């Protein structure tokens, strides 16, 4: 019996060691992915001379690793999530204050309050009126991503429902062509799309990127939504209809609530797609007719003589934030998205 106890102890110890080793390994391979982002944030909050400094990066990494390490160690010790997170955060905060406390400042974010940042940087009249206030670009980006999301979610939901529930001539061809369309890189279409947009008269308007992005995204999202509809049992709908609902009422009251997760998921992806779009935004305007965040970021580093990397990084932080927040809050819906449809 004593032997058993020792074996159990050894097994527990082994399990903890393996888990620890695995965590260390995973942290190690995620460093190359995480470091650029950490660096960006550090430059945005600490750079004073507009250079891409590394001076604060190393202390920051030390702070983060110390926080993660103390979290991991506490978790392995206590096997409880909350105290471990608390310990990790406290360690990181304390160490951060000690190592980085004096370096942190918000100067690089002054573009958020100064409507005429270009004049401040390059002097009066250098690029008068060419460069907007960041919030104008921010609002345009929101309009572009938001409108595009609403259209994509509405159209792909309705189209996918029809494809999932009705049989009609050409249904299979349609489904296959949805997939084939994905095989062509959208960038190959830049010139024809530019010409079409020009002839239609939408060049230099926000409608152009909204419509083009919507059209490019629809095939894939229709396919995803079809998977969600396929997973909704047919007899639930039939049951609603014998209960007295019309087909449209059955769709609204019974079917749609069950594909809610899918709609949220494709909505998030469509929004982020529109938020980050650069090619079709920059390609469909000939001057500075409209600004969005991606073009704003590009011109901050391109147009300003003697690039202020501190400010570029700060703009980048502002640019990443909405997408990041969206991901964090909708993560549980995104993980339920597979090509096949819904889980459970």
């Amino acid at each position, binding site marked *: 019996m004593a032997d058993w106890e020792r074996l159990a102890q050894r097994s527990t110890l082994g399990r903890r060691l393996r888990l620890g080793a695995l965590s260390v390994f995973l942290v190690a391979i995620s460093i190359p992915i995480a470091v650029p982002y950490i660096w960006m944030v550090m430059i945005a909050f600490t750079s004073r001379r507009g250079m891409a400094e590394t001076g604060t990066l190393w202390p920051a990494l030390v702070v983060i690793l110390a926080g993660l390490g103390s979290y991991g160690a506490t978790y392995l010790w206590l096997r409880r999530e909350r105290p471990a997170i608390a310990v990790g955060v406290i360690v990181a905060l304390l160490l951060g204050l000690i190592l980085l406390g004096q370096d942190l400042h918000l100067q690089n974010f002054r573009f958020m309050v100064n409507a005429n940042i270009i004049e401040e940087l390059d002097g009066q009249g250098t690029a008068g009126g060419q460069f907007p206030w960041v919030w104008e670009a921010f609002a345009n980006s929101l309009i572009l991503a938001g409108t595009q999301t609403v259209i994509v979610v509405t159209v792909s939901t309705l189209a996918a429902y029809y494809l999932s529930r009705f049989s009609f001539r050409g249904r299979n061809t349609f489904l296959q062509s949805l997939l084939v369309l994905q095989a062509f890189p959208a960038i190959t279409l830049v010139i024809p799309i530019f010409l079409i947009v020009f002839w239609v008269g939408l060049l230099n308007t926000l409608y152009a990127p909204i419509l083009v992005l919507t059209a490019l995204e629809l095939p894939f999202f229709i396919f995803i939504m079809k998977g969600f509809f396929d997973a909704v*049992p047919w*007899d*639930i709908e*039939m*049951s*609603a*209809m*014998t*209960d*007295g*609902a*019309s087909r449209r*009422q059955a769709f609204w*009251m*019974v079917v749609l*609530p*069950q594909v809610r997760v899918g709609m949220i998921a494709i909505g998030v992806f469509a929004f982020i797609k529109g938020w980050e779009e650069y090619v079709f935004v920059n390609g469909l305007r000939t001057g500075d007719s409209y600004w969005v965040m991606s073009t704003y970021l590009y011109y901050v580093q391109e147009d300003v003589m003697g690039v202020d990397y501190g400010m570029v990084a700060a703009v980048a932080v502002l640019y990443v934030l909405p997408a990041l927040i969206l991901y964090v809050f909708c993560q549980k819906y995104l993980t339920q998205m597979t090509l096949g449809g819904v889980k459970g």
Partner: protein
Amino acid sequence: MAQVTLKALNKTWDDAVAVADINLTIENGEFVAILGPSGCGKSTTLFMLAGIYLPTGGDILFDGVRVNEVEARHRNVGIVFQSYALYPNMSVLQNILFPTRFQNLPDAQARAREMAAMVQITDLLDRRPSQLSGGQQQRVALARALIKRPNLLLLDEPLSNLDATLRLTMRAEIRRITRELGVTTILVTHDQLEATTMADRVVCMNGGRIEQMGQAEDLYLRPDTLFVAGFIGSPPMNLIPLPQPGLDVPSAAKTLGLRPEALRPAASGLPAEVIHIEPMGREVLTTAETPFGLLRFLEAGTQPNWQPGDTLHLTYAASDTILFDADGTRIPGATAALKEQLRA
């Protein structure tokens, strides 16, 4: 409550015939079971009654009025699906109330509680369908189907997803409720026990056609066709191809049917060698090799009387035999007695 008449009803999918020429009248308040193997067209018939499928030909009459083109939601039919088809996004109470949302019912709430009391789920009204057991879901589906006081209640294999003991309870429950409400009910099932225990009248279907209809006893004792003879009864009827040496039969007879309980061991008769023994509780089912092929016979008792390899003689009363002609139709009044030489 309604009388339902099907006149020369048929349904084809492209070239496949699902239901062919069904003629059937179901009286007001009657409980009819449609029994048949899967793919025999029984569910298609049910869905045509509900208004989910449009008949290819023939008429459906409710109280003498043709309803072929009337939409499902206007037929006032209640249906319970095999999967129960509860709406997962609604609570039990909302599920039961769902059909009343399309009618102007001032007493909907009171009625829902009355239905819940009848199916004994009053303490589950706030739960979600996913929190219920199969039997409870079944009761909710039944309450939902009955709340609008339907003309006709349709049950599509309602018990096949329940375990054996629950099935026994629900059989009695469903029968009690339909009798209490006096609602015309059609049950579709492939389980002969369900059909014979619950229904006033059993309709046996195969290949889209009605093979026979009548009381359960008629189908068991006087099957009109070879199919009914083989389908009804468990263990199934022994079917012996004719002619056989040692059997006195009319020349038209091509198959002899003999229920396992009609065969019994005797001092003389058909020589048999025991192959396999299955104790079934109150009875023992024995399979034996005879000059007529493998035959099964039932004996009362919990203990087997034989061992595999034993030899014995089997006999039967000529009045227990049923003869079928080349088309598989029963020859009324014909019997097959064992000839003297075999009795020796």
